[in-house]
């Protein structure tokens, strides 16, 4: 009996440390006062509504959404064939290729952002949006390859062979047999990529230009000049958004298998 209580206490304390701050943000955003405090000075929803009125938040939210959706799609378009080839064929140097594709996870984001800006974006005169798009795609690519590989490895190869024997071309076998079977892996890769890209800061730090900023960068800038609860409210809203996505994914796909 004593032991269960001790173990409950340990779990509770750990979770309090990990999740507690998040509840504080929710309540700090509910404040009716004009400066950040906890417990909040009276309750109101005004800061949660105020967030939608800030023009720069609207713009940066749109940009972040665009980067997260299109960047992840683009990463999947080049990532799925790569994952397929790595899993199915004995390509020479497969390990090296895996390492190259995984590099964006290993190298710290701030270094990637700076390097891209200085040696690619400035010399080639890319627009800020294009630079951010390429960087986010490269960042998500390793996750796409890894998650899709994992789900390809669980797929038997003989069903594909059967399709070819029954008269499918290789491409048809892939689109009619393989693709439907790894659908949930692709969806999981998309969600993981989306969340990673949406929350990404260091890569975008140097690449963001005047007027073109991702939402997290915009929030960082906003925090430096004002001390009102709107960032708390926005943080809480974003957290709910990610939680909603992950919750649905977990219920429908068993998402945590892939993370």
């Amino acid at each position, binding site marked *: 009996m004593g032991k269960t209580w001790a173990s409950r206490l340990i779990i509770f304390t750990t979770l309090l440390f990990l999740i507690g701050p998040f509840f504080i943000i929710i309540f700090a955003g509910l404040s009716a006062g004009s400066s950040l405090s906890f417990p909040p000075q009276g309750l109101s929803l005004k800061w949660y509504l105020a967030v939608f009125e800030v023009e720069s938040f609207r713009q940066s939210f749109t940009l972040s959404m665009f980067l997260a959706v299109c960047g992840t799609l683009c990463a999947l378009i080049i990532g799925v064939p790569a994952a397929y080839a790595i899993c199915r064929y004995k390509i020479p140097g497969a390990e090296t290729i895996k390492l190259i594709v995984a590099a964006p996870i290993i190298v710290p984001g701030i270094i990637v952002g700076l390097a891209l800006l200085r040696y690619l974006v400035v010399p080639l005169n890319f627009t800020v949006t294009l630079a951010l798009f390429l960087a986010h795609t490269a960042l998500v690519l390793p996750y796409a390859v890894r998650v899709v590989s994992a789900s390809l490895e669980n797929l038997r190869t003989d069903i594909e062979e059967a399709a070819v024997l029954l008269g499918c071309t290789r491409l048809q076998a892939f689109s009619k047999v393989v693709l439907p079977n790894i659908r949930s892996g692709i969806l999981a890769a998309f969600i993981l990529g989306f969340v990673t890209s949406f*929350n990404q800061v260091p890569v975008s730090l140097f690449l963001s230009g005047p007027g073109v900023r991702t939402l997290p960068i915009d929030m960082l800038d906003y925090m430096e000049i004002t001390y009102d609860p709107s960032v*708390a409210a926005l943080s809480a809203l974003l957290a709910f958004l990610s939680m909603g996505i992950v919750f649905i994914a977990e219920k429908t796909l068993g998402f945590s298998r892939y993370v």
Partner: protein
Amino acid sequence: MVLPAAVFTAALFLLPVGILLSEGFKVGGEWTLAGYADFFSKPLNRTVFFRTLKLGLLVALVSAIVGYASAFCIVNLEPKQRGRIFGLVILPLMISPVARTYAWIVILGRTGIVNDAIVGLGLSDTPIRFLFTETAVFLGLLQLFMPLMIISLISSMENLPKDVIPAARVLGASWLQVFTRVILPLTREGLVLGGTLVFTGALTAYITPAILGGSKVLMLETLLYQKVNVSNDFVSAGIIATILIVMCFGANVVLRRIAKA
């Protein structure tokens, strides 16, 4: 089929990053190590380097201790409850680091919860400065990366045969011995994986030191940002980038060795 992915990554990643790293070895157009000597001769740079290393190790160590305790308790729960708690542990990983770090301002700020309590209880007449201290950065990093350690430990503890611990107890081992002789060796891989993730994560975090440390408690990442944006010093930027990458790879290699030994 792998070509597009490999070429894309090589062109967008390896090439620019490679050039950036090489900048650290060039001073005035000549290949030299003088930049490194110069970099480490400045006390501020040395302080930042050792602070980053220290905080990284400390965060990894504390999350390992807390991680073992909570992973052990979580693994012993009933399956249904375990799934629920596991979900709560990975939940923070999905929330924006900006949001998670921002919470610490509310907690540790001048009018935050901790200071309200301290002043309210009469422990101090004036609010104590917690923000922009190493403690704040440490707490922020710990909260950010501990879930990674707990997840790795849980998955390696799930593979632990159920009867080894009772067996060791029956044979007369104390709990400390059970931990050092049975649990630790059998979960070493999880510890190493978690340790690598937490340590490299803490080294390369930008948001937490930027918000909670500011320019008072610089870490390598925030120093890099300053070198570029304030002083336009690309030799130092290249050097810091190299140091960070070497430290991350070094941690990977060393820890993997330990896991195998």
